[in-house]
């Protein structure tokens, strides 16, 4: 194991954190939507992909990455809310599989739609000038853009936490996740809350898409691999648990990038090993409550 210096190790852990941060955003959105609506959003990866493309388009039109970072989540959240209102809502109460199947079909259409508009080939996405290069953190140089990704995700998580734990809207969200019937009895329009939650979840997925774009470029297929990662993370962390999504997301990111260093041939399989282990020891996930999903 020569050639593996502490610097290299630290760099790899850090790369894993940046990777994990994007996974966390996806898993948080997925988890939020599931926790409230009990909808497994199979189109989550497609919304991620859509976010990256809208971001690309917005960055080209306005010439600013920062504008893209704001426009893409808002635009995709609007699309998401339209989908919830007109496609998913008619399926509530028809069994848990139907919204899942619908979002699967929706993702199918979104991927093909993007292929029609932007072409089949992947496109490059330029890292904004301000964030190019590396930053010295005292013991090693780290790519500035990855630092920025970690920062944005951390900030967003704090905002989300405050929204859910400290506002009256958050109180309704938490109560609605527990027992939507009682919340409705108390005179609150739950369907409006669900609409907003679906918008927030898909908007966060779009933000993840824009953040990931400079790291990997954009392509119509970028959503499907990421969807599987997001599923693994929600299973590991526990469905409906935000803390679980954060911990499991970072864990999967770091383990994957460390595996690249030590056992490259097993890197892609590493997260499935984690998932299998969690399923064997704690089927409800690290932070999930037993019986919640019965």
């Amino acid at each position: 194991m020569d050639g593996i210096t502490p610097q290299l190790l630290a760099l790899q852990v850090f790369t894993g954190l940046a990777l994990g941060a994007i996974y966390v955003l996806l898993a948080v959105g997925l988890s939020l939507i599931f926790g409230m609506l009990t909808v497994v959003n199979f189109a989550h990866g497609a919304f991620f992909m859509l976010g990256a493309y809208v971001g690309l388009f917005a960055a080209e039109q306005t010439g600013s990455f920062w504008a893209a970072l704001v426009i893409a989540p808002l635009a995709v959240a609007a699309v998401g809310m339209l989908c919830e209102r007109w496609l998913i809502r008619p399926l509530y109460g028809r069994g848990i599989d139907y919204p899942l199947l619908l979002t699967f079909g929706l993702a199918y259409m979104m991927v093909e739609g993007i292929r029609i508009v932007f072409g089949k080939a992947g496109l490059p996405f330029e890292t904004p000038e301000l964030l190019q290069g590396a930053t010295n953190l005292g013991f090693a140089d780290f790519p500035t853009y990855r630092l920025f990704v970690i920062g944005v995700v951390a900030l967003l998580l704090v905002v989300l936490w405050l929204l859910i734990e400290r506002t009256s809207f958050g109180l309704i969200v938490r109560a609605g996740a527990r027992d939507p019937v009682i919340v409705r009895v108390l005179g609150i329009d739950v369907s409006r809350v669900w609409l907003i939650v679906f918008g927030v979840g898909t908007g966060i997925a779009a933000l993840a898409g824009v953040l990931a774009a400079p790291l990997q470029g954009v392509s119509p297929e970028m959503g499907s691999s990421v969807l599987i990662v997001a599923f693994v993370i929600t299973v590991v962390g526990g469905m409906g648990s935000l803390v679980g999504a954060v911990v499991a997301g970072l864990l999967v990111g770091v383990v994957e990038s460390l595996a690249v260093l030590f056992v490259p041939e097993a890197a892609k399989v590493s997260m499935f090993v984690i998932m299998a282990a969690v399923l064997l020891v704690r089927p409800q996930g690290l932070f999930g409550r037993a019986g919640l999903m019965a």
Partner: protein
Amino acid sequence: MKSATASLRLSPPLTWAALPGLIARHRVLATIAFFAVFPWLMPYQSLAINILIYGLYAVGFNLLFGYTGLLSFGHAAFLGVGAYTAGILIGQHGAAWWWAIPVAIAVGCLVALAMGLLAIRTRGIYFAMVTLALSQCVYFLVYQLPASGGENGLRGVNVSEVSLFGLHLNLLDPMHKYYFVFGFVALAMAVLSRILASPFGGAIEAVRENEARARACGFDIERTKLLSFVLSAGFCALAGALNAIHLSSVPIETLDYATSGLVVMLCLLGGMGTYFGPFVGAALFLLIQDLASAWTEHWQLYVGAVFVLFVLFFPKGVWGTLLERIRHDR
């Protein structure tokens, strides 16, 4: 009850109205009769072969989704493992088809047992996610297997001649190949009919209708689900092995997420929980694909839209809706 047994004993006169009931009672024979003449109904034979193979794939999936009520998004793993096992045995070890295919089914069942033991531990909605993730794991494992050919897939799965009980088939002739596949499909449909008519067939439907009540009745839910998962994988592995022989190759995309999604679509379009529906779904999908791809390369958009419309308005699928109409009329 009395009149039902009486009518059975008297065997009703052959009228058009009695035909659906007759077909329903002899579903295996009806399916075999239909597929015996099927190639003449299709524009070309390889489409007929594809419909048989993808239909069989959907039949296997339907046992789990339609009859047991478990939605798996990982069935590409079984199609792929069946295809790769048969392909490697035939192409690289010179195995004869008559033992390569049963081994492929057995390996498919074993992989399903391992996946099932993990996936059944989760409840409800987790199942789709865990099966999807595990099938992706199978994808990466097969991809790295030296014998699988990785990105390029498996080539040279050649079975050119088949002789059985004095019957000689030349598989280079599409018509002969069709009847080779047809033989296996007929056998599989007979086995499926037997499974569905057995007490186990009742148990899986009980699990689908009301898991808590089935548990209270004393059924071992976990074992029932696991067995259904493994049996379902067996049908899919057979479809995979047949497809490997049909194509003389195994593309790596066989194991792809899209292939898992495809079978969900086939099953829902045709009619989940119906005996013959999966074939209707496969025929519908492949015909749309065949027709639409002639004038647009974006046929997936239309297939996706049709699927979304079916989920919203015809969740019973084409065949399921048709059956409901017929039953309603009677």
